[in-house]
């Protein structure tokens, strides 16, 4: 049996009536012990008997690829194979692609494309052999700069923005740019593959196993039923592990050819090139406002890029459609097809860059109008989605702004820039609103209740997001079990297919599947108690109905109970606009000498429905806010203008925030339930923290020293250019 739910409308908040009291509480991660003791096994930690080592080889240029010394390399001591198989993939698959990406090794569409795999008896031999393989490419660089091509796509228009701009009391027309960025999870992409007959097992670093299995099978031309993927621990993903990556496909091919297990770990420099990047953007933002700052028109037009034949286009203005009122609109993206490494989803695709720049522009407008930036937002909150006309499922922007401002101490802020200085440092504060669409995919989960407790199984992943913790809490709450009697097993395609991790939908989607599985078990228990499920209380392993109280173990009578849940997002996600909201506040110091910026403190207030685990949710927000600091100040993946290759493809030159860049981060969650978001009434929290966080920093720079930086990141040279 399966308890199925298509979420078409509002759900009742049953959790509120449950007795265990562990849903939402800041429980420690059940996987914590393994992670702090070195026992958690990630993809490359497995070395099966007889395993050999593969190393990918990159294309050094564009066009047709020829290998000049294949026989020589193959003849080197320890080398087992030089594999150039047409099934190898050009770049990692896009999220939810469910099919192979572009394949082949004879044509390099971008510099860095994997075009060979060298396999050797040792990792050292494989690495040297890969470096020894000499390749020639015969093509000219195709277009590599966004301005060099005619971009595809037209924006959506409503009303007459040009007229609104002309008639506006205050009109702003500015261009912001953001550079290519990379997910850079600490765990490089890696796979260990082995075959047993025609059955393939791959341990890999992946976010969405249900889709990844199909992508891998399709790449190899085999039946997905013959593929098992394992990813119990994943060292971060942030979008880069949504789709199957080159290591997994190549490892599977090599393992088949050699009849031995093969491990392929991408070198960090390869990860920069072969997995999808966040597209660079150039965004023209136009704002038309009346004398009180009420928006009459919004323009948000962006130029983004991707490789030919990639379906993804960075949805920069995804949140702009519903963020603010304003009748006259031109909103949308144009896509330039470039021979740069592929772009795809990186933490909060769309909003991460789109909300950030838009919220910078809103800050500029507030200055123009002469009102407080918080007040400007409050004056422009729409009562329904201005683009679609749909009602909001819930709307917590005003609360976020007001509560966040109070907690941060925004009221003490001088109204003009350059009002506060400590030595050579200008001090200022800035804020931004946060928006992130809320989605639900499809997921299944199974719970087996035995006398020892509950075992939860789904192929869902925990990429650091806290899945192990929240699924433990969800199952424990519904089944009346303490956390130590719930055992969550993830990351194995032999389990029921979860949603996978991505787009902030994982917790609510798979969480609701687990919830439904638990409901099925509750019904069975209620039946054995001879009462209605709604009258059943489960707590600490005891079932209570009216005056009857029995240990669940007794009811099981030595056997087990199984529940299976299946959830799909339905009309509640089409007929109602669902979003999460928040407000960011930052205080920065800007050196008048060097242009260096230090963030001194940061606050975020967030509304995302029910918070399933306050501790892990907070950590997710810390992560998002820190990415905001990186986006604002340091992160910039540089393409060589001559051939598009990524110049700074290592951690010494691609600057993600280090410990010293991050000040104390204060996070506050609004107490909220969203009945449209499913039975748990919880929305996604994994990406909201990055949406707009960088804008709070950029706006604070302006408030500190009067410099508007519109080309991110605001590195010292760019700030200094304004100070000079």
């Amino acid at each position, binding site marked *: 049996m399966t308890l199925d739910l298509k979420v078409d409308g509002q759900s009742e908040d049953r959790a509120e009536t449950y007795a265990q009291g562990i849903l939402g509480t800041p429980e420690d991660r059940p996987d914590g012990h393994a992670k702090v003791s070195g026992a958690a096994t990630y993809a490359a930690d497995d070395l099966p008997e007889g395993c050999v080592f593969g190393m990918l080889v990159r294309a050094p*240029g564009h066009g047709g690829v020829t290998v000049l010394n294949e026989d020589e390399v193959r003849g080197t001591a320890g080398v087992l194979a030089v594999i150039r198989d047409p099934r190898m993939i050009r770049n990692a698959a896009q999220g939810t692609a469910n099919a192979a990406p572009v394949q082949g090794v004879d044509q390099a569409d971008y510099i860095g494309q994997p075009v060979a795999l060298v396999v050797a008896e040792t990792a050292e031999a494989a690495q*040297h052999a890969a*470096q020894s393989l000499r390749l020639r490419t015969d093509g000219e660089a195709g277009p590599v700069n966004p301005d060099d091509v005619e971009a595809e796509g037209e924006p959506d228009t409503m009303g007459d923005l040009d007229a609104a701009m002309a008639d506006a009391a205050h009109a702003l027309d500015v261009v912001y740019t953001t550079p290519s960025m990379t997910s850079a999870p600490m765990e490089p992409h890696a796979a260990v593959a082995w075959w047993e007959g025609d059955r393939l097992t791959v341990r890999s670093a992946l976010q969405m196993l249900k889709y990844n299995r199909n992508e891998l099978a399709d790449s190899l031309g085999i039946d997905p039923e013959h593929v098992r993927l394992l990813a119990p621990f994943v060292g971060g993903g942030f979008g880069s592990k949504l789709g199957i990556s080159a290591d997994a496909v190549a490892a599977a091919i090599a393992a088949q050819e050699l009849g031995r297990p093969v491990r392929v770990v991408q070198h960090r420099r390869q990860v920069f090139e072969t997995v999808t990047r966040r597209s660079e953007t150039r965004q023209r933002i136009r704002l038309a406002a009346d004398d009180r700052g009420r928006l009459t028109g919004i323009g948000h037009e962006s130029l983004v890029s991707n490789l030919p034949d990639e379906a993804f286009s960075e949805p920069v203005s995804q949140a702009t459609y519903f963020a603010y009122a304003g009748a006259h609109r031109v909103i949308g993206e144009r896509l330039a097809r470039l021979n740069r490494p592929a772009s795809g989803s990186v933490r909060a695709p769309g909003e991460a860059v789109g909300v950030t720049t838009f919220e910078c522009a809103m800050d500029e407008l507030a200055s123009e109008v002469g009102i407080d930036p918080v007040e400007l937002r409050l004056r422009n909150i729409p009562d329904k989605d201005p683009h679609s006309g749909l009602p909001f499922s819930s709307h917590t922007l005003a609360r976020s702004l007001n509560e966040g401002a109070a907690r941060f101490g925004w009221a003490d802020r001088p109204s003009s820039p350059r009002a506060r200085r400590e030595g050579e440092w200008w001090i200022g504060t800035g804020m931004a609103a946060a928006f992130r669409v809320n989605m639900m995919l499809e997921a299944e989960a199974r719970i087996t209740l035995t006398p020892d407790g509950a075992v939860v199984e789904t192929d869902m992943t925990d990429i650091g997001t806290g899945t192990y913790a929240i699924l433990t809490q969800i199952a424990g709450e519904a089944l009346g079990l303490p956390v130590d009697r719930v055992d969550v097993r993830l990351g194995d395609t032999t389990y029921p297919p979860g949603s996978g991790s991505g787009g902030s939908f994982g917790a609510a989607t798979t969480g609701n599947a687990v919830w439904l599985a638990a409901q099925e078990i509750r019904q069975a228990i209620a039946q054995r108690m001879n009462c209605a499920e709604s009258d059943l209380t489960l707590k600490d392993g005891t079932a209570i109905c009216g005056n009857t109280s029995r240990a669940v173990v007794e009811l099981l009578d030595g056997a087990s109970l199984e529940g299976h849940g299946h959830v799909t997002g339905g009309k509640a996600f089409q007929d109602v606009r669902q979003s999460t909201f928040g407000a960011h506040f930052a205080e920065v110091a800007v050196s008048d000498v*060097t242009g260096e910026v230090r963030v001194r403190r940061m606050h975020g207030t967030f509304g995302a429905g029910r918070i399933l685990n306050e501790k892990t949710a907070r950590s997710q927000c810390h992560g998002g806010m820190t990415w905001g600091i990186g986006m604002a*100040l340091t992160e910039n993946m540089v393409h060589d203008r001559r051939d598009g290759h990524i*110049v700074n493809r290592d951690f010494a*030159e691609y600057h993600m925030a280090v410990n010293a860049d991050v000040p104390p981060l204060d996070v506050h969650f609004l107490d909220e339930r969203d009945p449209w978001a499913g039975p748990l009434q919880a929305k996604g929290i994994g990406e909201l923290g990055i949406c707009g966080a960088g804008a709070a920093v950029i706006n604070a720079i302006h408030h500190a020293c009067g410099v508007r930086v519109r080309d991110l990141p605001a*590195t*010292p*040279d760019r700030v200094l250019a304004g100070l000079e």
Partner: protein
Amino acid sequence: MRPFDYIRAEDPAAARSAAAGSNAAFLSGGTNLLDLMKLEVMAPDTVVDISRLGLDAIEDDGDGLRIGATATNSDLAADMRVRKHWPVLSRALLAGASGQLRNKATTGGNLLQRTRCPYFYDTDTPCNKRTPGEGCSAIGGETRNHAILGTSDHCIALHPSDMAVALRALDTTVEVEAADGTSKSYEMDDFYRLPGDTPHRETVLEAGDLITGVRLPAPKGDRQIYRKVRDRASYAFALVSVAAVIRMENGRIAHAALAFGGLGTKPWRDPDFDTLLTGEAPSRALFDEAADVLLGRAVSHGGDDFKIPMARRVLRAVLEEATQ
């Protein structure tokens, strides 16, 4: 990594002779050598481990200090004599890399630290420093962190060290033992070569030459500052850095020795700059004039244009602080 013979030298003489072949490398901390060997940017056929030769002592030497080649950056930065009398050196060391790297990186190795030019690191792009005569990919490429002083038409690669910048300002000498056992000593300026048309030759060292240590003379100025500008708060190479050693007498600058990081193809010092300041009373005009001397010789490449105004501002701030 290309296969190599690993030799754990028992004494300096054995190390020198083991390395006298044409393509050997001394391994001390290894933090840069192994980094480059993994990418086969460097591919020695013999690696001579000198980390256990007892060359790590930090000893009083008259009124100066002798620092062994394999003294780690951490030990050197924490040495109480250095902290007290040559604080600019402690500061420069602490501004570099990370705690882990400083525990491994050594004095001699840091002097030989190679450029961070991304094209040097990328064996699929031409580089004259890596392969003489191949061409320079940085010229016409992405040049945000390249040198603006000392460059040539063949190479614009930046010297990335922090430590060496402080050592230059401290008039350090580098002590070397040649393969044949003879001792040599170099001023820092002579130790490093300009790229010219041989950017692959970065120092005067010949095959088998072993740096045994450096000698710091007595400090010539009590006002010592190391200031480094970088893209993030820690763990990043310098965009611009300044090491200043100043002595004031009767309101005038009696001794000025400034060296610069982030600007030059080697740890940079300009004698005209120091001369101009010496004997003068500090003023904004003087500092700007000195900056004109230094930066008037700069050639930037687009991406690194910002270094000129940035260096000017940092220089002014450092001089103001040091001459107060």
